[in-house]
């Protein structure tokens, strides 16, 4: 399998056209598809009494994909929405006051959080998949996961409806760990604000990353999902990074050269890239390669001419296609990401996460591998 196209960085950046389609376009195709044959629906359609919005149709149970067939993305309520005010109430005034506050504000929807554009993009892909494969269960399935007590559930459901999100599955664990449920849902990716829970998920073999509140977020495409990955300790294991951290750059280059033909071991996000690839192939099979609503990027500090080769060979051997591989040879990632405008960027080093966030890219931290011993978030607010 060839990887195409490869961008070799030489300081000049290819200008990527990012033109988010107008609201009308995306909404149009999404809502059109909701005109299902009424004979197929088990449940009667219902309109939402939300002012100024087109009524959403509730789909019948048969249209919910089986968890093992879908690409399940579990999102915490604290990254899908902005809940800082409520967090503060909890921290300062305790749980009883927090719950009372939530119930009092039950009909006030939360504002979108850092994972919101990503989830919207997943839904846009689903709309395109349904057009091409109306009976298929190979779709993105978004599950809302929260530690919250079910008291807060009503406000979360109201918020989902307000933002016209298609989320019909959720877990409100009332404080207990959601990890067991993540496995039961065959979760392909878990996004949370809590680094501890993300670490637990990674330990259980579930791709996971920590997200942070952002001050400014760049505009991203509404019609094409863009996911960017770091290489070492994200797609690949941290074996090479270990060499770099313990023995320095020269040793790293030497090691990579010597081991060029030996595949890197897989990292925690490899499975998710694979899942994206499977969906991409469904578009290619229908002649939609140029118009594919999923695009993947590798953004690595490796350099194209040397250490990057091992990365490419590994991806090729895994049968994974990545649309664009960007070798920065140590240059900062922020500006490159700003050009790409991914909905999400995965990296294991907080330094890069912060650099990305400074330029408005939503970056998620994968707390895996040797880099964790050297990490400490400086500017971004995370944690519980």
């Amino acid at each position: 399998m060839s990887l195409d196209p490869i961008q070799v960085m030489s300081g000049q950046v290819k200008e990527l056209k990012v033109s988010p389609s107008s609201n009308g376009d995306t909404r149009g195709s999404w809502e059109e598809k909701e005109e299902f044959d009424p004979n197929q629906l088990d449940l009667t359609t219902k309109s939402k009494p939300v002012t100024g919005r087109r009524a959403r149709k509730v789909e019948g149970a048969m249209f919910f994909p089986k968890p093992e067939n879908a690409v399940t993305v579990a999102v915490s309520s604290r990254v899908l929405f902005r809940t800082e005010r409520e967090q503060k109430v909890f921290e300062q005034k305790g749980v009883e006051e927090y719950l009372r506050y939530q119930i009092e504000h039950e009909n006030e929807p939360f504002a979108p959080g850092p994972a919101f554009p990503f989830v919207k993009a997943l839904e846009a892909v689903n709309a395109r998949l349904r057009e091409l494969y109306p009976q298929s269960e190979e779709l993105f399935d978004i599950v809302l996961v929260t530690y919250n007590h079910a008291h807060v559930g009503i406000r979360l459901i109201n918020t989902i409806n307000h933002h016209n999100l298609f989320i019909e599955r959720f877990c409100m664990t009332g404080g207990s760990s959601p990890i067991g449920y993540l496995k039961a849902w065959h979760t392909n990716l878990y996004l949370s604000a809590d680094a501890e829970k993300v670490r637990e998920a990674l330990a259980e073999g579930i791709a996971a990353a920590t997200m942070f509140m952002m001050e400014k977020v760049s505009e991203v495409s509404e019609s094409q999902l863009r996911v960017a990955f770091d290489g070492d300790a994200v797609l690949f294991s941290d074996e090479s990074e270990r060499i770099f951290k313990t023995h320095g750059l020269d040793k790293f280059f030497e090691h990579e050269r010597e081991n060029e033909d030996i595949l890197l071991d897989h990292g925690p996000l490899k499975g998710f890239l694979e899942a994206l690839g499977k969906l991409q192939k469904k578009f290619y099979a229908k002649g939609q390669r140029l118009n594919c609503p999923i695009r993947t990027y590798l953004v690595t500090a490796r350099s194209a001419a040397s250490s990057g080769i091992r990365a490419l060979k590994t991806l090729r051997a895994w049968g994974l296609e990545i649309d664009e591989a960007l070798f920065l040879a140590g240059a900062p990632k922020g500006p490159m990401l700003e050009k790409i405008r991914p909905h999400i960027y995965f990296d294991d080093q907080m330094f890069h996460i912060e650099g990305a966030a400074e330029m408005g890219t939503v970056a998620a931290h994968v707390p895996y591998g040797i880099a964790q011993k050297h990490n400490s978030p400086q500017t971004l607010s995370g944690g519980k």
Partner: protein
Amino acid sequence: MVSTVQNSDVKQKDEDQAVVVAVTFAAVFDAEAEDDRDVYRLGVALPLLQVLQRVNERLLEENPVEHQLFDIILITTETRQQQQSSSIINSTRHHGLEVGRFCFSSEDDFIESLAHNNVQLFLTTDGNEALQATQQGVPSALLDKNSASCPSDQLRVVLCQDATIQPNADSSGASKKSAQSFLTLLGQIRQKFGMFNSPLCFTIVTSCGGKDSCCSALKSLRSLGVSVDEAYCLGGAPRGPILSILRPHFLLSDGFSQLEG
């Protein structure tokens, strides 16, 4: 001929305020295994009995004169069992079970006994018995081998709402009403503890409907005074994996009709 016997080892509960839970002989004891000392071995209901006792202890810690406690009755549902009354009493006292009284009835009159004893929840390992009781307006739930491995420090009650379960032909107003009043009682007990470290955890699982059916379930439970701790909206995903993590002591469903395991 039904006979009711008090267990003198156990302090009797307040008639008006106690929440009466009836558990069948076959659930409390492993009826097959009787050792030669004429003592039955314990069955699948053991963790449940322990946890109900735990809730009572915690209630009394909060309020030493609490009257709204669980009151457990052991009930026989077959003539053969009815005739083993002394062994049953003996075994119960031997194991130190917190059973308030015994109700020795047969298959013909156990339903009457439930009503007569003001039973608010009937727990059995037999599906037919559960169905009969429900039809007569006594909320009931099935225990099975899974019940045997439940925790004994927190009572986990799971209410399953399934939009596609057709209401029983016999799902009368009375049956629904008694189900609701039982839920209300549980809600009252739950209110006596805080959000964390509660000995009673109330969970709702909606199987087939989407978020909106879960939302209306949460609202209607709230109107009954039930504060739900955990909620899982499955959107058609299979229930099994989630239930095996939840490990409920028993499952309640709409109208409390019989539920597959």
